[in-house]
């Protein structure tokens, strides 16, 4: 392996305030009751800023602002709403370097991912839905589509700004107003986005950002004047939200967990498959709901494939997220690191064999070496539960039918991968997989035009594409 000199991206492009308030009705405002919390850089444990924690009264003010803004915003001609969204998309492109560095600081993801994946997709998402704002009658949801009202949106910490874009862009295009709660550990890019809205001169109240922990999200979801709830996060919290919303008539979409099978057949090009497996599980430290966390490899090529995978894993660079050479950054929080550590220990205790490449981890911050488990059975917890970290469980199969059976043997159904040179097999297997996104001879590809979302307990509704509008139209 070549030694690389460090190539750090400068963090001077980001100017952080010591503390941030809530963004309500077009202005930053301290929380009236909830106090503050600190957000840290997971790579260094350094405090980045202090952020307001919204209490029930703060959430109520934000919902009130969104309600007042809804009438005028939904009455704007679609072409005018579109122009605000185009402005936002452009400003994001103009500030993308700053926002990428900010995202890596607060989240721990490698700069090459925030720069080359997150930020381009964020801008593209606003561009895509901007174009829908004046074409809603052609979207196939009836001749007179109407917005729903005030959307309460709760997003996770793995792709903070991208998940914000997935939620806010279609909501605004369809004429809704929003109150968005970013994750507790990654609130900063949403607050910078509030500034983007100000630069775009978006009318006050159309977008409101309330920061806080789970209870802030719970206030928002339960608020009686919220008409539509959208949540991305764990299946456990999704269930709780579905219970809260039951009987209220609020519209609900959920994008929840996954335990995707990445299926490698014996005729797959091994080197490409290895790249796909690495991308599938180590992209974004494995903090990906659609991560290919279960490798199903056909028995006859398992040995060769695993040798090749281990060789490839030994070249992965773990460390400083702002270093442009870094492949795997920091685990997002101490709590997430504890969960990954615990499930990995259970994997060993239950009899699976653990392997990681030699890999020096920084002393401070939250880190986990890329890890694979072989000899995993379907009963093992590491084959059933979402680990949400750089940990791959390897199982084998002999026939396509067995591969399909094992792939579908999970309450989740978000994504899956297929690796084979045989086109007819791709199509037949893709038909039988119970998953919302199937990547064949590729993995972890995203696009604003491509619908994303799960079957079964991975949630309901789709985000992206024409399908993504449905959640925001009455």
């Amino acid at each position, binding site marked *: 392996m070549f030694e690389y000199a460090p190539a750090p991206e400068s963090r001077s492009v980001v100017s952080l305030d010591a503390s941030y308030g809530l963004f309500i009705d077009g202005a930053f405002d301290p929380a009236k009751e909830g106090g503050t919390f600190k957000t840290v850089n997971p790579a260094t444990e350094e405090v980045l800023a202090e952020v307001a924690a919204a209490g029930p009264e703060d959430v109520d003010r934000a919902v009130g602002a969104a309600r007042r803004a809804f009438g005028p915003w939904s009455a704007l001609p679609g072409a005018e709403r579109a122009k605000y969204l185009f402005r936002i998309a452009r400003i994001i492109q103009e500030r993308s370097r700053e926002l990428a560095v900010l995202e890596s600081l607060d989240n721990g993801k490698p700069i090459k991912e925030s720069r080359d994946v997150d930020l381009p997709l964020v801008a*593209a998402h606003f561009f895509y839905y901007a174009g829908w704002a004046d074409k809603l009658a052609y979207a*196939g949801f*009836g001749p007179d589509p109407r917005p729903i009202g005030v959307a309460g949106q709760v997003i996770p910490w793995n792709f903070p700004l991208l998940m914000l874009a997935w939620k806010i862009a279609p909501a605004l295009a369809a004429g809704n107003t929003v109150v968005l709660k970013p994750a507790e550990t990654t609130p900063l890019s949403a607050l910078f986005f509030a500034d983007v809205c100000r630069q775009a001169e978006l009318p006050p109240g159309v977008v409101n950002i309330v920061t806080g922990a789970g209870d802030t999200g719970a206030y928002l979801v339960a608020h009686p004047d919220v008409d539509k709830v959208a949540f991305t996060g764990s*299946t456990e919290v*999704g*269930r709780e939200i*579905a*219970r809260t919303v*039951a*009987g209220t*008539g609020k519209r609900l979409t*959920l994008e*929840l967990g996954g335990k995707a099978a990445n299926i490698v057949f014996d005729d797959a090009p091994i080197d490409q498959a290895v790249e796909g497996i690495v991308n599938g599980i180590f992209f974004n430290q494995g903090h990906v709901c659609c991560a290919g966390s279960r490798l199903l490899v056909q028995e006859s090529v398992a040995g060769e494939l695993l040798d090749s995978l281990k060789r490839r894993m030994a070249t992965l660079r773990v460390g400083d997220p702002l270093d442009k050479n870094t492949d795997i950054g920091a685990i997002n929080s101490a709590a997430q690191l504890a969960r990954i550590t615990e499930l990995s220990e259970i994997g060993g205790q239950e009899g699976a064999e653990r392997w990681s490449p030699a890999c020096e981890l920084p002393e401070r911050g939250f880190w986990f070496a890329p890890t694979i488990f072989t000899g995993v059975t379907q009963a093992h917890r590491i084959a059933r539960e979402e680990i949400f970290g750089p940990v791959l469980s390897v199982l084998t199969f002999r026939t396509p039918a067995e591969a399909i059976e094992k792939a579908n043997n999970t*309450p989740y159904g978000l994504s899956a991968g297929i690796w084979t040179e045989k086109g007819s097999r*791709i199509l037949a297997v*893709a038909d039988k*997989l119970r*998953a*919302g*996104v*199937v*990547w*064949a*001879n*590729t993995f972890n*590809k995203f*696009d604003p*035009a*491509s*619908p*994303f*979302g799960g*079957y*079964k*307990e991975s*949630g*309901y509704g*789709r985000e992206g*594409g024409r*399908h993504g509008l*449905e959640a925001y139209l009455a």
Partner: protein
Amino acid sequence: MPKTSKAATVSEPTRLAVRKTYKLYIGGKFPRSESGRTFVADGDNVALASRKDARDAVVAARAAQAGWAGATAYNRGQVLYRVAEMVEARRAEFAALGVSGDELNAAVDRWVWYAGWSDKIAQVAGGANPVAGPFFNISAPEPTGVVAIVAPAGLLGLVSVIAPAVVTGNTAVVLAADPQIAITLAEVFATSDVPGGVVNILTGRYAETAPWLAAHADVNALDLTGVEHRELAAELERAAAGTLKRVIRPATGAVDFSADPGLKPMTALLETKTVWHPKGY
């Protein structure tokens, strides 16, 4: 629903009518309730479905689902069109159960309308996505799986909840509001090449059986159209959250089943699968 006279006319001196026994419809067969219970509806003894019957119906629906979804859309359309023919052929029987001519016409026409969607919904609800890269990317709708339905009263209402569920490749467990009408419709299914288990019909009290279906881990979606009590609907929706079932909520006001239903009754029971593949030489 009041029936027209069921007693034989007295002028025929000798022949006594052969009455029909109304039983459940599960897996293409007409069993009694395993509980042995019946109740009286409009003068008939009708099977009173139990929790076990509901669970048996889910097993039958699950067993039938892959085959039904895997049939060609053309074939499913043909089978469903045959159902419309058979309902038409049983006009007199439905009329004797109190179904008006107008309602029957509307029910047959609605069924024909849905039958035609079998090979069209995928083109309307899916298609190629123009992603920014060298990829073939296509979205297609797929059935969500097993759907539990609390049906509204009347033949048109019943047809309006069953047809969208099955034309899309789902299989259904239906809790019927009008037992005789529903079981007569089951006889139509049984004689129309609808594979056993695709539609299963339970008669009895939905307030007793629906909670088991709402919480059943092998049910994928719950249609509450026929639930009249708001609090029960909310309770069932909460139970459905345990396995994140898709839920069709009851309307807040009266439903006009004669109006154009739009795509929503079908799309609410469909998943969207998106497949990516690289393009290259």
